């Protein structure tokens, strides 16, 4: 199924990617060819087949709610692009 430039823009917006015009054209073409390939799955009848989300029989794992040492705040903030007073600093939100 061919993706239009408009659809690529929509997906990029959902994925928070600010694509250039050239990227939009390139990705529209490449994503379309991958989706065409994915469409080969339509040949398989799957009515009544239970979707397999996880290969293991997954159950919730619980533990005792015990206080344990957490990671060092300064060490973690050392990776922050911008921090002030032990807080992450970002450009204006509104």
């Amino acid at each position, binding site marked *: 199924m061919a*993706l239009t430039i408009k*659809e*690529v823009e929509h*997906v*990029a917006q*959902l*994925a*928070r*990617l*600010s*694509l*250039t015009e050239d*990227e939009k054209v390139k*990705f529209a073409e*490449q*994503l379309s*060819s*991958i*989706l065409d*390939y*994915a469409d*080969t*799955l*339509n040949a*398989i009848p*799957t009515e009544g*087949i*239970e*979707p*397999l*989300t*996880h*290969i*293991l029989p*997954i159950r919730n*794992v619980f*533990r005792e709610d015990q206080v344990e040492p957490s*990671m*060092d705040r300064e*060490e*973690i903030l*050392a*990776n*922050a*692009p*911008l921090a002030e007073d032990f807080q*992450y600093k*970002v*450009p*204006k*939100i509104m």
Partner: protein
Amino acid sequence: MELHELTVYELQELLAAGKTSSAEIVKSVLARVDAVESEVKSFITVTGEQALEKALRLDAQGHYQGIAGIPMGLKDNFCTRGVKTTCGSKMLANFIPPYESRASRRLDQQGGVLVGKLNMDEFAMGSSTENSAFFTTRNPWDLTKVPGGSSGGSAAAVAADEVPFSLASDTGGSIRQPAAYCGVVGMKPTYGRVSRWGVVAFASSLDQVGVVSKDVRDNAMIMQIIAGHDPLDSTCVNLEVPDYMAGLDGSVKGMRIAYPREYFGGGVDQSVRDLVMQALQKYEELGAIVEEVSLPYSQYALPTYYLLAPAEASANLARFDGVRYGYRDRDAENVVDMFSRTRDHGFGDEVKRRVMLGTHALSSGYYDAYYLKALKVRRLIADDFTKVFNDYDIIISPTTPTAAFGIGEQSGDPLTIYMNDILTVPVNMAGLPGISIPCGFDRGLPVGMQIIGKAFDEGTVYKVAYAFEQNTDFHTIKPKLGVR
């Protein structure tokens, strides 16, 4: 033989006999890295100074247990406390983790000596290391060829004798395919066998940690250390880890080995098919029962994978927003603009492609047609394996359709390069253990054979792999680096 050429097992013997020290081994390995790294380019970071310090500390204790004193490398998506972890991405080019991955911590605590972090396709997405944001690793057997990927650095470093073993991760073939291309042993255990805690996530229902080594015995020995329950990874199962080394007796007598006809089809090079068929004959000579079977839905594994893995990746990679760590675009005026510009500039093309593909497959209006459909087909693919394993102990196939391809040869069309994983992806879909071991050469390049086992039966996979290794010498042949 120089120390850097030896296996883990051989190094352990020398250490135990007092014939060498960890410092001597580490120096030999670092000298080898110095000598060949300009050609192979496996390492993103070399931790030589720290390695030597730790080796000297271990030597001072005067005795060595397990892997104490043995050098190792880690794919650069294993978080290493205090050591840069880039994931092959500009996004994490300066990221220094405040914690250590569980698998590498287990090795570290047992005295394993980290000598460096190894190159990979960005966020483990790729089959050649050409998607690394930094450089492309070269195949030690032929420097014009790719080493495979995404764990190309992990495989090339072992093949080039730069480290005796390395850890890597495998989501659709990222351990087995480069192991095949570089002529080394690469094991992806059962999903849930090894903790993924501290390994940068790509597709969480498929990712698994494994080992690249020079031979099967070393691989089993390292797996023994990293496998087992971890409360920090809720998908890491609480099952006893059997003694893998105890099963390495060279015997396959009476074992039932299946080879799926779909894995020997027209898309697979004749020379690759011939080599794996010869290996199957060898197993027959050794007393195994070898029969053809069918895995009809495996042909749909690749399109299924390219919906499910990107879908999971699009969710996992949402965390890279320039706020808490990693790259940030400094010119944005508001926060949403900052997210979008950071992600466009911080991610490479393949990552962007997959994030968009996954976002599309999960988006309103397409979820049922793509994501849900793929989950149903995934069940059919996994059920195929279950049926065959009702009657057989092991499944054998080629690891890849061809030997290593040329650098730049497949970079034009994403779909072409995806085809390299067509024989490894089904195994991740079913969560099964699979190993690639060398089974011959095609025009001077190594060819890998894939041995697939039942869930949590890594022991039988190792046993069967070891029996082949004991009766052949492919694993002892090394690339002639530096004497071109």
